């Protein structure tokens, strides 16, 4: 989607970066722009993961079709994250439930696991609110969208 620039950083710096997605897609541009940064971040060889909570969970709903509103449909890009070695998408269980959503309503997103003969593994992990809070507390940087 966006051009990748060569990182100019002291070598060996490896931070835990979490992108925190809390907004519904399409009504505002934040979901799209978060995805742009996520893709760029892949070039920096950091430990990147994504969190989807509150209305952010709507970003992963399957079957999105923006043709009739005339905007760009970036939903398929989530399925390409595995190719960028971004393999951890944490989705908050309570956020899904409040919105009448089940895991089956989400896009299937997978990645190949190099530690397991490149077997396809699911990238989405549904976690409870307390576990989401714990995951956030384990990061070096939280980037909020």
């Amino acid at each position, binding site marked *: 989607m966006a051009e990748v620039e060569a990182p100019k950083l002291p070598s060996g710096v490896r931070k835990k970066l979490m992108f925190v997605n809390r*907004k*519904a*897609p*399409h*009504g*505002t541009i934040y979901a799209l722009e978060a995805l742009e940064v996520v893709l760029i971040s892949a070039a920096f060889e950091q430990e990147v993961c994504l969190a989807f909570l*509150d*209305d952010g969970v*709507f970003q992963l*709903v*399957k*079957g*999105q*079709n*923006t*043709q*009739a*509103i005339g*905007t760009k*449909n970036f*939903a398929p890009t989530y399925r390409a994250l595995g190719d960028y070695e971004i393999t951890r998408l944490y989705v908050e269980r309570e956020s899904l439930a*409040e*919105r*009448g959503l089940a895991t089956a*309503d989400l896009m299937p997103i997978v990645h190949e696991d190099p530690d397991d003969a490149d077997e396809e593994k699911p990238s989405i992990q549904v976690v409870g609110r307390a576990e989401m809070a714990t995951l956030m507390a384990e990061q070096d940087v939280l980037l909020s969208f």
Partner: protein
Amino acid sequence: MSTLHTVNKSPFERAALISALGHVRPGDALLMIEDAVVGARKRTAFAAVVEAAAKICALFVLAPDLAARGMAEKDLIEGIKTVDYGGFVDLAAKHRRVQSWL
């Protein structure tokens, strides 16, 4: 002398839809557009409030915005109708005034 109410934000994120539903009158229509269409889903934390409002006034969702969010008619609370942009214009023309709950 009825009113068309439009709401464009998710009820899970903003108070606009609930506030609008608290101000509708018999004969009014309320149209959910943009991110508000998720408020028309069945089995959400707000479904009971929306269902109660459907007994007072006519509820609509904008179909193009519905499709963008991966939703279809089967996901909607019973009684909510879909319209396209032309239907939005018709609703605005039919009612005496438009209140945009921004």
